[in-house]
């Protein structure tokens, strides 16, 4: 109905044009009324047009040749978005100034909502494949900005929410241990130190330098019905460990806007935050010698999730440097069973069933909290990794990511071979050298080769050893943290690569 009416109106218009008002005059009036003409832009687009003649040129000939009056009118978009106009065969600009404007039609693609998936994907894609571009964006953004400096011996209070995911908590602990290794006086606390009994938040000034790990949870999860206000992030350092495309992250933007610095364990995410003007830097995770959480776990606890695990496996932990063949579990995976992962496992199930697997799958995408609902505590997860030959990694969604936790902390650190689908780029480890990066459809073949052939087994030994050496010798968290907060820090990635 709508379209028919449009068509007949377009025909009316054309017949009126034949005798009455000249299209040039319509365009002239319409363009000026709609304020669509951008002189400088037009001149830049058409260098042959003398600057003083630009408007005249456009009104006389330009529009007939299909030139746009300015960046705010996209004829291609206008026709695509308005099939009735396209069908009527009317010049899109002429249609807009005569009808479209009054009807409130859009003249160009509307901007997607910031941090929506549609907004993020093209922006992240560049940084995910080009680490140099990512690093340059971060450096350019940091240059000349105030940045928190931490002299050795500085007191640092690290915070993690008591209801945080167990993996976030591990990162917070590692971060604290890293600061101590870097010579700081760092301690880990939670939101209960902030939410005072009188209902107010503790004044930020009475505390030392504050680092908040996993702000998307810290400022969102309620404790006794209360949530830490976003204002509390003012002047603090926030360590983001959440993927940007999740709702969790999008809802956690407020505190980020107030922070003195935002660190992100994902290079592309850090670059994107930097490109949005956040005081952002990339913080790769690294090794802390003697960090107890990730040390040898000689016995595994008796918990429901390990109920069917043989006693012999529970009470004996192969030494980290003995060959993988002495590890009793072939393939280990722990994580949220997203629909995407369910599909991958479904397709691979029969192939993988010939190997001894340990797939600890959790049900919902809500925090697995230590001591509450976590299927496995850190010790059990790390202990299983130490008893496994291979750690598998699949992304939760179609979005590229580098799952630090699974790849580095559960995998490389435990000298377990990491086999993953293609990952987002980062600067600490290399595919083929430190882990195996394989398209999903080839993963089952690669597993059969690694576990079932001598060439595969020796490759596995080489990769997992060189990965571990890389981690312990070149990716030391204390060094990384010292450089990120030192007075003359410029580029963390360069220092970790050296």
């Amino acid at each position: 109905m709508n379209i028919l009416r449009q068509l007949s109106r377009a025909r009316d218009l054309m017949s009126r044009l034949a005798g009455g008002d000249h299209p040039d005059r319509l365009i002239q009036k319409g363009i000026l009324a709609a304020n669509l003409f951008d002189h400088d832009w037009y001149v830049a687009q058409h260098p042959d047009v003398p600057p003083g003649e630009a408007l005249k040129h456009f009104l006389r000939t330009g529009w007939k040749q299909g030139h746009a009056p300015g960046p705010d009118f996209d004829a291609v978009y206008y026709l695509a978005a308005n099939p009735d106009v396209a069908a009527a065969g009317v010049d899109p600009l002429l249609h807009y100034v005569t009808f479209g404007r009054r009807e409130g039609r859009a003249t160009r693609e509307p901007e997607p909502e910031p941090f929506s998936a549609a907004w993020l994907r093209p922006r992240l894609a560049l940084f995910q494949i080009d680490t140099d571009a990512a690093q340059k964006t971060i450096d350019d953004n940091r240059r000349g900005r105030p940045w928190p400096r931490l002299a050795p011996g500085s007191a640092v209070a690290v915070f993690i929410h008591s209801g945080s995911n167990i993996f976030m908590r591990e990162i917070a602990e590692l971060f604290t241990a890293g600061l101590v290794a870097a010579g700081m006086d760092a301690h880990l606390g939670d939101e209960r130190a902030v939410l005072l009994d009188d209902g107010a938040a503790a004044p930020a000034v009475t505390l030392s330098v504050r680092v908040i790990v996993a702000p998307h949870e810290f400022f969102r999860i309620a404790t006794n019905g209360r949530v830490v206000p976003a204002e509390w992030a003012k002047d603090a350092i926030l360590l983001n460990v959440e993927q940007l495309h999740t709702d969790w992250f999008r809802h956690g933007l407020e505190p980020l806007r107030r922070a003195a610095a935002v660190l992100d364990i994902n290079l592309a995410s850090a670059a994107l935050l930097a490109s949005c003007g956040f005081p952002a830097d990339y913080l790769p995770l690294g090794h802390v010698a003697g960090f107890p959480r990730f040390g040898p776990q000689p016995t595994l606890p008796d918990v429901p999730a390990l109920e069917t695990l043989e006693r012999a496996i529970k009470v004996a932990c192969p030494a980290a440097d003995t060959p993988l063949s002495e590890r009793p579990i072939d393939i280990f995976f722990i994580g949220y069973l997203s629909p995407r992962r369910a599909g991958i496992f479904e397709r691979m199930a029969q192939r993988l069933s010939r190997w001894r697997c340990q797939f600890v799958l959790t049900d919902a995408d809500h925090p697995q909290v230590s001591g509450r609902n976590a299927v496995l505590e850190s010790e059990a997860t790390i202990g299983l990794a130490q008893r496994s030959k291979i750690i598998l990694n699949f992304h939760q969604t179609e979005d590229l990511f580098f799952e630090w936790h699974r790849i580095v902390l559960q995998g490389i650190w435990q000298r377990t071979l990491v086999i993953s689908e293609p990952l987002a780029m980062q600067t600490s480890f290399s595919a083929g050298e430190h882990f195996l990066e394989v398209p999903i459809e080839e993963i089952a073949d690669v597993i059969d080769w690694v576990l079932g052939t001598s060439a595969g087994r020796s490759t596995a030994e080489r990769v997992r050893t060189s990965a571990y050496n890389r981690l312990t010798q070149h990716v030391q968290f204390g060094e990384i943290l010292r450089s990120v907060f030192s007075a003359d820090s410029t580029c963390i990635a360069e220092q970790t690569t050296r």
Partner: protein
Amino acid sequence: MNTVALPPAEATPYEIVFRHETERLPEATVIVPVWNGERFLRECCESIRQQRSVEIELVIVDDNSDDGSCALACKLVSHWRDRFARALVIRHAVRAGPAAGRDTGMRLATTQAALMLDVDNVIYPQCVRRCLDALDASSAAFVYPTLRLMGTKGGLQGYQQFDRQRLARGNYIDALAMVRRSAWADVGGFPHLAEGLEDYAFWLTLTERGYKGAQIPEILAAYRVHEAGRTALLKPIVDMLNERLEQAFPWVRLGRVQPGGNAPVPRPTAGNPDLFIDLMIRILTNTIYEDPNMLPGAPAAFVSSQRADGRDWPSLAHTMVGEARLRNLARLVDLTLLEKIPGDFIETGVWRGGCCILMRAILAVRCERQRRVFVADSFEGLPPPKPHRYPQDAGDQHHEYPQLAVSLGDVKANFARYGLLDEQVVFVKGFFDQTLPGLNAGPFALVRIDGDMYESTIVALQALYPKLSPGGFVIIDDFGAVEGCRLAVEDFRKAHDISEPMEQIDWTGVWWRKPATPRDDVGAEKKALTPTAGADARRQLQALSEAFDSRCAELGLAPNPLAFWYHTVDLGDGLVTPGSFDYRASIDQFGFPASLSGATALDVGSATGFFAFELERRGAAVVSVELPALSRWDHFPGETTTGIIGKLRERLAFHSLRPQGEIAELFRSMADDELYDVLLNGPFQFCRDRLRSKVERVYCTIYELEAALPNRRFDLVMLGDILVHSVDPLRALGQAAAVCANELVIADDIQGDDNEPAALRYVGGSRAESDIAEWWRPNVNWYRQVLARLGFREFEIGHSFETTVRPGGEKLHKRVIHAKR
């Protein structure tokens, strides 16, 4: 609470049709119950044959199949017998169900542990070995591996840990598990319950006895999903079975399905009615043909994410609420049916009707024939804001959008397009402040409010929330989109102390559930039941009643306090009856001659008598005709007047301004003749006395006019709102014509224009005793033709005019026909 134990399993008679024994000692048993599973048997047995590193005892139990299952089982097992340490093929003498098959297998097994394997599933080569090791490693009574789903559904299943509390809320462990025979023997076998739930009942029985299960974190088998089978057939009796399980296991709570915001889209499965609902949603939102957006100021192109969230104004689709809110609606409607929340469904603000069509569609697919869907709208767009009364609506521009006005005819046509226009759909036409406060309907199981403004939202909440059943749902469509709507909801919730959390559907839609246990402040409930102060009609009636009562007291009159004043009649002396129908202001529209001096007039169906007394006032000698008794009320062939009289009682209670509970009881307890006096004769006689009127009274039905008034002809015969209640309008009109010497005046809801062919539209519905006895709506040309044939030559057809019914505020459309000989 007394527990009602499930019956123990009884042994099913069987014969051994194949037996293979060896010297080897089996480590584990695999039990395969089969019923008509010939097509799956080979693949299943093949997967057992390929098991590695384990000595197997195989027991196949044929449950008296009609197909070749038994013969094929014998053939396969015989062929592969070397692979098994022991193998049996058993045939049940009668069909007894898969649980009985498992029990028979368990009785014949000789090992410590048996894997239950249904014939349509397959196990991977390590399965039996790994299950046996897992059982050895743990103290559990049964172990279950992660399953890969195949068939009509994909993904994984059974990966969650064993958890008694989780099990108490529903089964998540398939029968494909390895069970210790000692535990099986201890609990007396698989409980006998309807097919499909016996495995769940078995896990519950074991858990109840202190046993536990354990999960094996490996994918060891593939499980075939075909919901067309027993699980789907089970649906209608699921409530009953859940109740049975709750009786047997007091710690189990199955009744409540969690009303989720995020239940998955149904997967295509054979015979799955959810698919129909899914398709309805896709069609209603038209994500199929992707019609353009017509929201002013936005691009016209179809954008699927916009449509999913209901952010655009579809140019063709029948709803603009989008997919997310439709799915939410479907889930909540289903939930009211599942939980038997009593009542009908209503949406206020329907646009093209999509949400209501979906609700009607769900009722259809769930075979629900009692509940109705109320479709409330002005069908003329939104009202202009009334900023003096609702400042929150100041500046609201919704009424300026002609795109938001969809006519009643268009909405009806939309229902008809889906084949869903029938008597289970009720249209309520008019602006909400006029229609909703007096709406004679309820209770409701679900109220969906989509009024876009403060006024439309608050009026709907005030009128409908009190009629919402406990446990029913309120959905607010515009909470996030329209500030005024949000304020209305917040004001209402605050004023009524509603603390139930609001659940968010998408960027704008929210819903909450009325608590299942009604709060004890019944007073507040009652107060809320009476319509808002904004209901002018009710206020007017209130004022008239008060003035009437006080004037009666002053004049020393004592009319029956229960009298139903159908008409507002001015009786002089400042005494005016508080009628539901007030024609005082619109009397000129009826076109009576100013003077009837010397004329005779007949008023058929006088009720309180307004027209009879009016004709008398104009000088006519008037005869008033009334029914001789309520039992003579015209009724549908084959039915009785009982239903009509019952409805009358309800209606009388509703029209009364007195407290509803007790007044309803009073009207219910009245004898029919008492009711007749209160409703028809009493008020008329009261007026007649006061007016010292000479109106002659005749008692008969409209079909008996000629006989009751022998040889009498009247200059003017008045038929006001009577033909619609006549089952046989032609005969009724014939009788009226027979006693009419000159002029016939018909005042009714007369529709149609001069171009419409003569038609008599039936409005009585298809359910017995379903309405207040309205049968036919003839159009203008029907009257023209019929009256011409009855000998009338001149017609004068007045314009349509509106009167308001008190206290409900319904608009009544009226046209008056004058026909002269």
